[in-house]
């Protein structure tokens, strides 16, 4: 089941608009790729933002389209859908449905990686070779796991405000990170199990230290790095590379930091404290496949601030002619 996830750099970055656009494009090719199912991490598609009350674009499910949402959001759609399954989440059930006609719907899906994996298995049983679109969130790291997402669409909000520039840059930075080499992947695979948050490996390929503690809060990790600064070669992290941790690791020029996935790159908490002088090499264990970056530009912001890698197509849905966008 091909799964495409949508991530926005900020609120009002146009993520739902991008999802609707891609959904429409894929749905038109339905006869080639099977049905399309839309779900979300948490709740999305409300008519107004729960935080600032601003109107938001709705998620429109097409006739015959599949969706996964919470029961509470189906109250107003009686008779407009058929239930093909009920997914029991950790806290509540989710309905897997099929629309009888095109409907604007609030979408709510599971909030944990385990639930999303189980949902995908159930969907594969119920709907066969469907495509799944996930209205995602960068804060949910499981979305980057290869068994969850096959590809991503990013929605970036570009303005002249520093916070927006910073958030967009933070989202894009890991796209430039090279993938870990085969030897590094094998080495990490040798020591890491699902619950390890950090592993420090020496020149001989031996694990110096494994830990399940959150790396940013793991003071023993810093102690181990200092103690083995001459022979530590690789640091695998499955927790956020925060500003504090980045600062600490900055002088370790012989170290290669391998992040489990791109969502872990969180080097700067604010624009006023940019990360500079970081000398270790940073690589990704799980390569990220970004199919396209969609930008929403407010005022006369400079598009170059987005600094999207050259090999990734960039579109502005609101300014370019949609027919010419080659998705």
């Amino acid at each position, binding site marked *: 089941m091909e799964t495409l996830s949508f991530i926005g750099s900020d609120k009002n970055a146009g993520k739902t608009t991008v999802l609707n656009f891609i959904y429409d494009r894929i749905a038109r090719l339905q006869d080639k790729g099977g049905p399309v199912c839309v779900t979300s991490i948490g709740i999305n598609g409300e008519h107004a933002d729960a935080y600032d009350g601003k109107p938001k674009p709705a998620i429109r499910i097409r006739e015959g389209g599949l969706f996964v949402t919470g029961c509470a959001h189906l109250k107003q759609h009686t008779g407009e859908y058929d*239930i093909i399954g009920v997914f029991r989440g950790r806290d509540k059930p989710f309905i897997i449905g099929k629309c009888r006609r095109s409907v604007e719907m609030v979408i709510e899906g599971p909030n944990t990686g385990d639930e999303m994996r189980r949902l995908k298995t159930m969907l594969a049983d119920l709907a066969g070779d469907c495509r799944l679109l996930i209205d995602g969130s960068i804060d949910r790291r499981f979305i980057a796991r290869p068994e969850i997402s096959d590809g991503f669409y990013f929605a970036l909000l570009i303005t002249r405000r520093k916070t927006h520039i910073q958030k967009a840059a933070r989202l894009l930075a890991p796209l430039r990170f090279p993938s870990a080499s085969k030897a590094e992947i094998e080495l990490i695979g040798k020591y890491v199990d699902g619950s390890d948050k950090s592993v420090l490996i020496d020149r001989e390929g031996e694990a110096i230290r494994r830990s399940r503690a959150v790396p940013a809060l793991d003071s023993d990790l810093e102690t181990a790095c200092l103690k083995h600064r001459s022979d530590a070669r690789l640091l695998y992290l499955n927790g956020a590379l925060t500003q504090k941790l980045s600062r600490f690791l900055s002088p370790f020029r012989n170290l290669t930091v391998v992040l489990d996935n791109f969502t872990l790159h969180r080097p700067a908490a604010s624009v006023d404290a940019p990360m500079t002088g970081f000398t270790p090499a940073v690589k990704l264990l799980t390569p990220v496949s970004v199919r396209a970056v969609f930008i929403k530009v407010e005022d006369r912001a400079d598009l170059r601030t987005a600094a999207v890698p050259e090999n990734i197509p960039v579109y502005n849905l609101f300014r370019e002619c949609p027919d010419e966008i080659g998705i």
Partner: protein
Amino acid sequence: MKLEFDRSAAPESVTAELGFDEFLELFDTDMPLLPVKTVRFCEPESGRRRYADLEKLEQRLDRAGPPVERLVSKSRGLPKIDEILPFLTNRTLEQYHLHLLGRFVREDQRLREFEGPGAPLDCSGESCDTILNLLSQHMTENFSGLKSDPETDALRREIETLDRKTADALTAFEQDIYSRTGLKMTYPYPREIMPDDPALSIAEACDLLTCAYRNEIVRIGYNPPDAIRNLIARKQKLESRISGIMETRLQRVNMELSACAEGFINYYKKRKTRVYRYVLLDVKKRNGFCFPKFTDAAVCEFRGAELPVLKKNAKHYIPLDIRLEQGANVIFGANMTGKTTVLKTLYFHLTAVGMGLPLPAAAVALRYPKHVRIHLKTSGDIQTGLSGLGTELAFFENAFEPFSYVLADELFQSTNPVGGAALAGLVVEEYGRTDALFCCTCHYPQVLDIKSAALFRMREGEGGGRRFLENRPYRVERIRGDCEDDKIDALVSPLRIALQYALPDSLKQRIEHYRERMGHGKDTSE
């Protein structure tokens, strides 16, 4: 199904040590209808009835019913629908509730057919049949949605026609805009252009478009003609009508279902109880457990009683055989002979009886335990400010309820031997006059003289060396209080145990000499 233990029923430190959680894991079963079940300590009447019902069901299944493991397997198809029952009563079921309700009654019908006449529920399934019939009338196959009717079908066709007309009109409208302005107005709206874009003046001049300035950018939106607005409004009206019809239909279904709500809710509760019983019977059968037999007399007899956590960890496990009588029962024996383990095994089983669970034993007969209390050795409690003796005395403040089982370890060893022996003797005598069933372990030889107490001693393991330490719990045997040999043997058994250890030779010699003086040397005891 995950079985959970009512934590208020027993001290957490004891239940953790005795491996209650591990024992409850034996009952883990994939059972959507009962994801979690909390077991609680029952009063005598309902507790006895609980076991009687289980035995009755077991007998019926053995006689004429399907195998219990198949019943457990078939019960897995039943969804849990507790959350929709209030909606059923309040006539506010939604479409997805009807789906779940439909799945339940259909699966229940299959299960009832499988159960056959051998194990019918003591509640009619009529309400389920009525619901199944009603839902079959109103819902599509698999209860996936509300059935359409000619009116809604006609409205849907009309909407489809309007959709096509609207799409055609919008395409023509967009083409019109394109031909007049060169702007492609397709999703998403509004389009954005910069104020210095030459297209802006053309857009502003076009009555088909709207232009709005915001943040130095011009947003160009639609200004569709009335014909298109009317089409969209007409469609919205039709959609509202369909929604209205569906709501009315839903209300009707709710009204019809409400007639059997009470009967169904009662049936659903009984079905859950029945499925829980299937799981208990299945676990009993798979593990060779037993149900207790209840007596009116205050006795408690265990044969082959196991403490699962101990059995798992011991190399040569010896299950417990013991019969306790009303009043005081005193287990006499040296340290490390397993007295405390016997008490803990008793506590485990008595608590499991109160919880209504099958027991890891060959046979159990007892008076139903209304209360079960245990006191284990303690050096005091800083939280309550009580010393070891204070804690023990506080325990006995609440341990004289009628029909209770009271277990106490190393009676009054928490104080000096003289006072301790006196208190122990008095407490044992006091229990001899009650209808409680008191069982304690004790070192004080004075208690052997109490005529009203049933006395037991621990038989040590066989094989010599330290091997006896692996055999737990050790065998318990009844002794006569008036037999001086038993008394002396019980008193010198610590000396015998001490000789199993690698103590200095000189010390071992002194111990041997002492035993010989007491008439329990090598030639007489080994």
